[in-house]
């Protein structure tokens, strides 16, 4: 496949799917987002996220260490906003508390890990997931593995530059943006559900 034709779609994509960045997918600029590898406006991406979460059978949030541990000012507010968002959607929350591989075996009912995220997704039959508060390197690593081995649709809310390996990504996510997404979901809820 040519680089320009590459789309970041729900899998399973295969044995070892490429990094989207190596296939020519570029991170969005400020004010933009990515949906399936294509640049869209942030408003469009927010609405698409809302639709995906509301139509999912088993939407699940994967919060990472950056919002699970109250390590700097503002984190608790962000975590509270994510919890409220999950409650609006009716999404399950399965944390990624750290990045250690879990040996001899992960308990996929209560935890997800970036080195083998597929195990938690398969076990819980998760069809749409949302990454938030995961360090970018570990999020990208996990997103590729999920795309390779599962049919889960991935969404990444990033406080930095975003994630090409997610099917939808927002960048520079703040508490205000999380609350904006929550309001969009509440508005759409009547139409979709």
């Amino acid at each position: 496949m040519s680089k320009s034709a590459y789309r970041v779609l729900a899998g399973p994509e295969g044995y070892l799917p490429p990094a989207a960045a190596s296939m020519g997918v570029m991170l969005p600029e400020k004010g933009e987002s990515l949906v399936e590898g294509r640049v869209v406006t942030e408003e469009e991406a927010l609405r698409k996220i809302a639709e995906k979460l509301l139509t999912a059978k088993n939407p699940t949030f994967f919060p990472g260490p950056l919002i699970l541990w109250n390590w700097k000012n503002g984190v608790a507010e962000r975590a509270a906003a994510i919890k409220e968002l999950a409650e609006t959607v009716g999404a399950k929350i399965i944390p990624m508390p750290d990045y250690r591989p879990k040996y001899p075996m992960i308990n996929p009912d209560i935890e997800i890990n970036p080195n083998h995220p597929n195990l938690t997704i398969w076990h819980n039959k998760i069809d749409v997931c949302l990454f938030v508060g995961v360090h970018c390197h570990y999020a990208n690593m996990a997103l590729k593995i999920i795309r390779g081995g599962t049919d889960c649709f991935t969404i990444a809310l990033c406080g930095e530059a975003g994630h090409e390996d997610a099917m939808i990504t927002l960048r520079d996510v703040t508490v205000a943006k999380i609350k904006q997404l929550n309001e969009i979901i509440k508005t759409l809820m009547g139409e979709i559900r």
Partner: protein
Amino acid sequence: MITQRIVEPEYLFFEAPREKVFITGSEAVREAIKRANVDMAISYPITPQSESMHLVGDIFAEGYLKEYFRGESEFAVMSAVAGASMGGVRVFTATGGPGTLRAFENFPTWAGARLPVVCAFMTRGVNSPLTIQPDTIEMAFMLDTGIMMLHAETAQDLYDMILTAFIITEQTDVHIPMGIFVDGFFVTHSRDNVEIAAEDIKLPPYNPYNSPVPVMDMENVPIRQMRDPFVMKSNFISYAAHASWQQEILAASERARKHIHKYLGGLVETDNTDADILVVASGTAFSQSREAVAMARREGIDAGLLRIKSLRPFPTEEVKEMTRKAKTVIIPEFNRVGWLCREVKSAMAAPEKVLGGPRVFGGMTMPPELILAEIRRCSA
């Protein structure tokens, strides 16, 4: 510590008034580090790099850096640099030739650990019988370590590339090491005009909390000192995790393209790439190529130039497009293996157009007439 004013990178790179000074490449390194807000530098001597890190030691004594020491060997230095970077400080070092190879294991380790180390490589021969003379052979070995590689042509390049490297490598979406390669002696030990900003301004400090991996300061429980090793199991999960990890390092290098465009004006420099004869080169081989093309034009031969500034990421699309019209592509190099020739050929739609050479090595200079002779032969 010396008092300096912190300014935005864009101001320091593009707007701040500059003074023209006549200095060596090694001195250009010193001037860049003075303004780079480096926390720590670690050195080990090897010709032709020794003087540059000696001069960085001098500015440590003047109060421009917080810490500076000499390691036990190049391997020790590069390991200590990894520790410093993992601990969350901005760090600089330099080496060259056999020193590069002695430290070699550390370079993929830096990349794999997402460390934004900036290292200058003053290239020289690696050979027996021993040579300390100019040669770019070590760059061939470095191409697949995962670190980004820029090739400076002049002392001005060296100054600008070192300063911008800190800002490019520290982007959250990049955050892998960058090597600034420069041809030893030809640039490090010769004087040239270099335009530099005032020494009372410097870059903003590195913020390790924007890193794509946790810093090693125990922010996250449970307490860990290293990137978690998942290598100890022989199963598909650990292999897949390793593969995805390595893909992410390559992806980080891809993401650097837009930052290299922003801060260094692109991965290549071009002049008349519509010509029938195109000379492609990097480093000081490009300086000699520029002279040769000027001589050819005076003889009425239409020749063009393509300079490769960034080797990793490699300007694949640019090379493919800009070599499209040429009937012959000449690639002069300061090494025996022709690594740039291999790289350029692999990016071209029609690699049979490439004339690999001229190549000189072992410390030989490359007279422009050598390149001109190839241009004449191809135009006949």
